[in-house]
């Protein structure tokens, strides 16, 4: 970012009220934004064998500014990584305006020029999104048009290049997505929904190699069908991707495909859903040499339950995009209030079963990779998770959650390397006691037992909420079963919240782990030190 830009940005900020105030007086424009800052200070620690970087300080900062003026909407996002926190790519080093956009939002048409986020269908074919915790921001810089010519038909169009740190991808993306509402089209007077949709996405990157058969342009196609009634939901999507040779798929000329089927039933107090998914060679990037979580075109999260407790996240599954088949089934049930088991406040139950296998494949060699049987699973189990949670409110002041989980994790497949399957049993107990004047204590006790990998763990957390503003917490995870070094991974901290302004300071020792948010994972390194987190919106 040049000096002129910086001066402009500061001027806008400094004089925002004056500048926008003028508009406010005339047309009621609104200026708003948010700010988030995470800073860390690192210490040496020979228990977890970390050598701190030469610069012991690191900080990630994000400032978003939005301005709304009638049907016009504009914004920018300034980011500063000085240097980036451990675990984020060093390529973020520096600062600058990462996004800027201008939108018009009319009734039939919405146009955005600049940086934007968008998703087609369930995202299996295309999704541009931001996830700061994972350092993912694949916003497209270009043009996004959303059209709604009638109440039964809508169209989305995207054209642009993905963000790559503070630069742009070499590849270009363009796509078209349409939705047709059958019920509205035929003016059926029933409380149901039936939609069909289709997408086309094409990406191109210059190819300078010698192979005349190499595809510099790759097209993907998808179709979907969704049905909704008050109680029942059925949805499905199928994606086909043309031959897309990449570093990450060994430059195989193989095509890819994905199938997603969801069924859900929901009534008051009882609900369940079944989700099945099959992926085959679905990794898709806008540059052929992209690695890690760079320049992802589509969104392929793990289709398993996302756990809230720390020991349940030691072995998190991430989707095996080269090939996997499986699904999950969940039930939510509230035992009615007033019944014997329900008590005065009702008792809430949740059961979930998730399982994923590799595909049933035959290797072909050469540039074709493999072929596979469609509705068959291979011999290798990738992940299995059976879990049960019971949530009970005993009185206005006392609430408990009790849970059990059995997990089988194919560490060799998910993390890479040579490991046996980790089979673990986890129990967790969480209780909350409320006191007058908004004071409360929340405690978690967890245990993971396994004979495999790093053996058994125990974890505990205590959280004191002194009033709606102040919270103090202390947590520890201890790998007591490990044959080698037994380590305490602790985290103590405090947070202060006033309306939308929040400050949190903590001191922790963190293990090297796979951190997953929304089913997409990033390896985070071990560290010990201080973290300061500030967020605010205005």
């Amino acid at each position: 970012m040049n000096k002129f830009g910086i001066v402009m940005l500061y001027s806008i900020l400094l004089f925002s009220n004056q500048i926008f105030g003028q508009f406010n007086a005339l047309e009621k424009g609104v200026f708003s934004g948010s700010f988030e800052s995470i800073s860390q200070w690192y210490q040496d620690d020979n228990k977890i064998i970390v050598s701190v970087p030469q610069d012991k300080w690191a900080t990630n900062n994000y400032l978003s500014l939005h301005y709304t003026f009638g049907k016009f909407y504009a914004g920018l996002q300034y980011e500063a990584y000085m240097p980036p926190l451990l675990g984020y790519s060093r390529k973020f080093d520096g600062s600058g305006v990462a996004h800027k956009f201008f939108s018009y939002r009319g009734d039939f048409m919405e146009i955005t020029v600049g940086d934007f986020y968008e998703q087609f269908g369930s995202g299996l074919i295309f999704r541009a999104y931001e996830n700061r915790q994972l350092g993912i921001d694949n916003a497209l810089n270009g043009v996004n048009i959303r059209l709604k010519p009638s109440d039964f038909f809508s169209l989305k169009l995207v054209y642009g290049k993905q963000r790559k740190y503070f630069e742009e991808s070499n590849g270009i993306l363009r796509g078209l997505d349409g939705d047709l509402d059958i019920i509205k089209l035929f003016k059926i007077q029933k409380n149901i929904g039936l939609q069909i949709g289709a997408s086309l996405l094409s990406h191109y990157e210059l190819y300078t190699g010698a192979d005349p058969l190499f595809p510099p342009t790759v097209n993907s196609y998808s179709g979907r069908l969704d049905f909704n009634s008050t109680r029942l939901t059925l949805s499905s999507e199928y994606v086909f991707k043309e031959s897309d040779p990449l570093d990450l798929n060994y430059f195989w000329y193989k095509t890819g495909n994905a199938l997603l089927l969801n069924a859900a039933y929901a009534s008051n107090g009882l609900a369940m859903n079944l989700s099945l998914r099959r992926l085959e060679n679905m990794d898709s990037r806008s540059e052929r040499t992209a690695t890690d979580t760079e320049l992802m075109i589509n969104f392929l999260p793990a289709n398993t339950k996302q756990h809230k407790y720390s020991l349940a996240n030691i072995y998190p599954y991430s989707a095996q995009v080269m090939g996997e088949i499986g699904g999950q089934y969940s039930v939510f049930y509230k035992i009615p209030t007033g019944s014997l088991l329900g008590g005065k406040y009702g008792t809430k139950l949740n059961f979930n079963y998730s399982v994923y296998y590799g595909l049933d494949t035959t290797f072909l060699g050469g540039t074709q990779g493999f072929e596979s049987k469609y509705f068959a699973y291979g011999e290798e189990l990738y992940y299995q998770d059976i879990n049960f949670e019971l949530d009970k409110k005993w009185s206005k002041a006392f609430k408990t959650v009790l849970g059990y989980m059995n997990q089988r994790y194919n560490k060799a497949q998910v993390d890479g390397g040579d490991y046996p399957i980790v089979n673990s049993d986890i129990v967790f107990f969480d209780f909350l006691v409320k006191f007058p004047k908004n004071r409360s204590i929340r405690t978690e006790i967890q245990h993971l037992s396994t004979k495999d990998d790093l053996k058994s763990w125990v974890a505990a957390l205590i959280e004191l909420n002194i009033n709606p503003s102040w919270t103090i917490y202390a947590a520890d995870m201890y790998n007591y079963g490990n044959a080698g070094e037994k380590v305490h991974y602790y985290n103590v901290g405090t947070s202060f919240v006033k309306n939308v302004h929040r400050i949190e300071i903590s001191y922790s020792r963190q293990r090297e782990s796979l951190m997953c948010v929304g089913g997409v994972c990033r390896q985070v390194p071990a560290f010990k030190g201080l973290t300061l987190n500030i967020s605010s919106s205005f």
Partner: protein
Amino acid sequence: MKKVRIILLVVSVLIALGNQSEAQTVLPNVMVESITGQEVSAMNFFNDGKPMIISFWATWCKPCILELDAISDEYDEWREETGVILLAVSIDDERSLASVKTLSAGRDWPFTIYLDKNQDLKRALNVVNVPHTFLLNGKGEIVWQHNSYVPGAEQELYEEILKLTENK
């Protein structure tokens, strides 16, 4: 030099904040999806001149579920006394989207649920993380907002709602 820039930036933001007399007041024209897949503009959220709570949440967010459970237990009383309604806007993505409907039904929540799966509304309202709760008055203007949840904090929200209804 870089540190100087950061300090400059922070100072500028603070000054801008200080100058900002008028906060975000109304809901923008941003589309979210109803639980049955219909697109709805946030601009059209409506409660017939009575207050409205908009709560951003996600199925994987523990404090969000605690908050919505707590409000759910008091909801009948709140509605009777003040006519308030709560719209629960889920920011879940495809990973957990399927369980938004089942989790909320399974926990018997009496709220209207909306899906903000592309997080357009979350961004437009400058929500950094969930839970984030907005309170709107009868004219649809945002009068109060709060980030994060600790048990008992719903009482603070209720007091804000009472301020709105008692002033009438």
